[in-house]
């Protein structure tokens, strides 16, 4: 499939000459570096595809799972396309003075880069080697507020599994309904669930479920962070997800498979509930975790009348205990958790009080912000057998 918009067959591939401001080029190069494959066995994937047409230059990078296409203003003297080694180009352009850069395709796919008194020729590859990319669908495009999507990603992406064996957990489930958006991620040990209602998603009827790969989530987050675009356009076809953020288009291969039935694991009768300052809990856990078994990171939480005791020990480093005053009158309970899992949540939840809701030492515990915010956020974490 041909790339969209300007790369039509009318553009000759044997010539290209453009002039572009260093500032604009560098901005787009920086934004796309994350998608360039670092250690690939397919050399073309280390290259950008540059396509010049009209008064714009479009840049594309892909690692076959993910592709990112962006564009910027350019004075196009001769339309055309070329490929340029991405990392080297980025490193070189960074060092150029703030002036206009002229990029010109030479013979044998070499590319000349001129800026002021600097003159470089880079070894490119044939444009025809660059993989063809999917085209943004024309129908069923959903508009999602950029900051909402960003907030959802920040609250879930850390819980995504990084395991080959459970392939469908390598992404988050995004559920769009006409008036709400939900995102769920789990690695089997913990599950992050965040929901926003009172939204309006035109073009969504019923339920639109999508598995978004972790790599795409991370890239989306940094793309949103680097622009002031307010709305993201989301669409998908049979195999690909599309996110348009202003002039940048991120595509991602879809994860296929069934996301686990997460509703079954949401705890219902966790009746031992305490409320504490997130900062206090985080600091205490970070302290005792220094002495936790390095691999398991197990910390012990002992809930007693008026007090939550945290402790950890390992044969190599010693043992450590901390305690936090809490309002609790129920039966005592000891439960083990991976310290990192708790810390991950506290970081994502931000400042403020959190509620810790437990049942027993074998059942999932639940953490959530004590005050309801715009995001309805809950985090379920399975204990460790200690």
């Amino acid at each position, binding site marked *: 499939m041909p790339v969209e918009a300007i790369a039509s067959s009318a553009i000759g591939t044997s010539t290209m000459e453009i002039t572009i401001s260093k500032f604009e080029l560098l901005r787009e190069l920086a934004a796309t570096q994350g998608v360039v494959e670092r250690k690939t066995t397919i050399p073309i994937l280390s290259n950008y595809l540059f396509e010049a047409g009209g008064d714009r230059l479009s840049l594309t990078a892909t690692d076959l799972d993910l592709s990112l296409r962006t564009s910027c203003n350019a004075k196009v003297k001769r339309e055309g396309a070329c490929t340029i080694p991405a990392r080297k180009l980025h490193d070189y352009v960074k060092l150029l003075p703030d002036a206009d850069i002229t990029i010109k395709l030479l013979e044998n796919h070499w590319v000349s880069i001129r800026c002021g008194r600097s003159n470089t020729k880079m070894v490119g590859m044939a444009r025809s080697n660059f993989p063809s990319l999917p085209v943004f669908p024309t129908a069923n495009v959903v508009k999602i507020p950029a900051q909402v999507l960003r907030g959802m990603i920040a609250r879930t992406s850390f819980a995504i599994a990084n395991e080959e064996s459970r392939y469908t957990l390598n992404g988050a489930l995004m559920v769009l309904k006409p008036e709400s958006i939900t995102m769920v991620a789990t690695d089997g040990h913990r599950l992050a669930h965040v929901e926003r209602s009172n939204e309006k998603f035109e073009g969504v009827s019923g339920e639109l479920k999508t598995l978004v790969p972790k790599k795409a989530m991370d890239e989306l987050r940094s793309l949103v962070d680097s622009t002031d675009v307010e709305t993201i356009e989301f669409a998908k076809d049979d195999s690909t997800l599309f996110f348009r953020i202003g002039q940048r288009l991120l595509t991602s291969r879809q994860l296929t498979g069934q996301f686990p039935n997460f509703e079954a694991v949401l705890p219902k009768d966790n009746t031992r509930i305490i409320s504490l300052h997130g900062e206090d809990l985080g600091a205490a856990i970070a302290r005792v975790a220094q002495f936790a078994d390095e691999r*398991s990171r197990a910390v012990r939480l002992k809930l007693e009348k008026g007090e939550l005791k945290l402790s950890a020990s390992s044969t190599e480093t010693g043992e450590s205990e901390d305690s936090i005053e809490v309002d609790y009158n129920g039966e005592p309970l000891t439960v083990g958790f991976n310290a990192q899992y708790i810390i991950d949540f506290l970081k994502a939840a931000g400042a403020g009080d959190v509620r810790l809701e437990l049942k027993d030492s074998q059942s999932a515990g639940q953490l959530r912000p004590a005050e309801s915010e715009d995001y309805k956020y809950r985090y379920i974490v*399975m204990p460790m057998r200690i």
Partner: protein
Amino acid sequence: MSTLPRTVFHVDMDAFFVSVEELFDPSLKGKAVVVGGQRHERGVVSAASYEARQFGVHSAMPLRTAAKLCPQAIFVDGHPDRYRACSEKAHKVLTSFSPQVEMVSIDEAYLDMTGTERLHGPPLLAAHKLHNRMKAETDLNCSIGIGASRLIAKVCSGKAKPNGVLYVIAGREARFLAPLDVREIPGVGKVTEQKLHSLGIRKVGDLAKFDDADLEHQFGKWGVALAGKARGEDAGAWFEGEIGADEAAKSISHEHTYDQDTANVAQLESTLMRLCEMVGRRLRENQLHARTFQLKLRYKDFTTITRAHSLDAPTQLDNEIFQQIHRLFHLNWRKGSEVRLLGVQASSFGESFAQLDFLEDHARGKWEHALSAVDRLRDKFGETSITLATGMKGGFRERTHENPAALPGKSKPSPS
């Protein structure tokens, strides 16, 4: 290590497997017996009687070679259960003599007898008592070596065989060792031996005359250990530890050599399943959870690969072990290539700080229950009474070896 002279016993059961077989079939006594399988089978000799050894048969030799060397030998299948039971009896006897007992394999152990004179008398008397007690309790003969180091004790027990006791008193080690071939030092294998020979070192006495520094120059750290060994000291690696100090197993493994090389995927998978079951069973028996699982794969041409994977959380469940091994196998097996041997090893034993998992724990709990029932059935009706379906066609006799090659001094056929 303590600086006081120690009294170390090395107790080695004489022709252990054969002797155990003789308990069950006295007609084998005094005959050339080969334990490990039938004469036409593939696989190797687990043990041979002294009579068979006279014909050059030794453990780890292919059964068919043994049949050629000693056609009149009686070939007997191994019975690991019997050996384990007898080994446990022997272990009991040993622990009644010293609290510091280290079983280094199924049929030999080191005892630290330092400071037991008031209880058991001087070393030779204690050894005599131990020897008699062993015979009375297990009906088996053993040989005992006594010295101030494990190394001396070990060499002594070899020299005392069969059914003897040998004591080298402290201070006389070098004189005792000097006339021995360097190969008789535990830890010296073919390679070191050749290298020593090329330096003109044939006897331990020659070795002792060499400068420590020269040996270090030639062999590195190992050279320093060699110099110590020539003086009868426990030097180098495992020999430096205290007896019984670290008894915990480091790994558990099972392997199987096919009678006929095979590239049949179903058969290979079935064997792997069976091996995983055996490893899982041993893990549960010892209440261990392992994190690292290793696949060993030997092709027809004897090229051997090992590939391992470490899990985030340790396990002792057959199905979880198999999942890893199965994956490693398919990632690494050259499709269609005939396989001679498969092995499964579990290591990195850890506390089961098991992270519970809400997606798999339900299934996991079921497996735990099922496997514990399976274990009870096996305790009652034998190891092969029940097996997972995948492993059914992979059934084979378990083979045990008296002399695991990995242990010091075990890299060569026993001379006695």
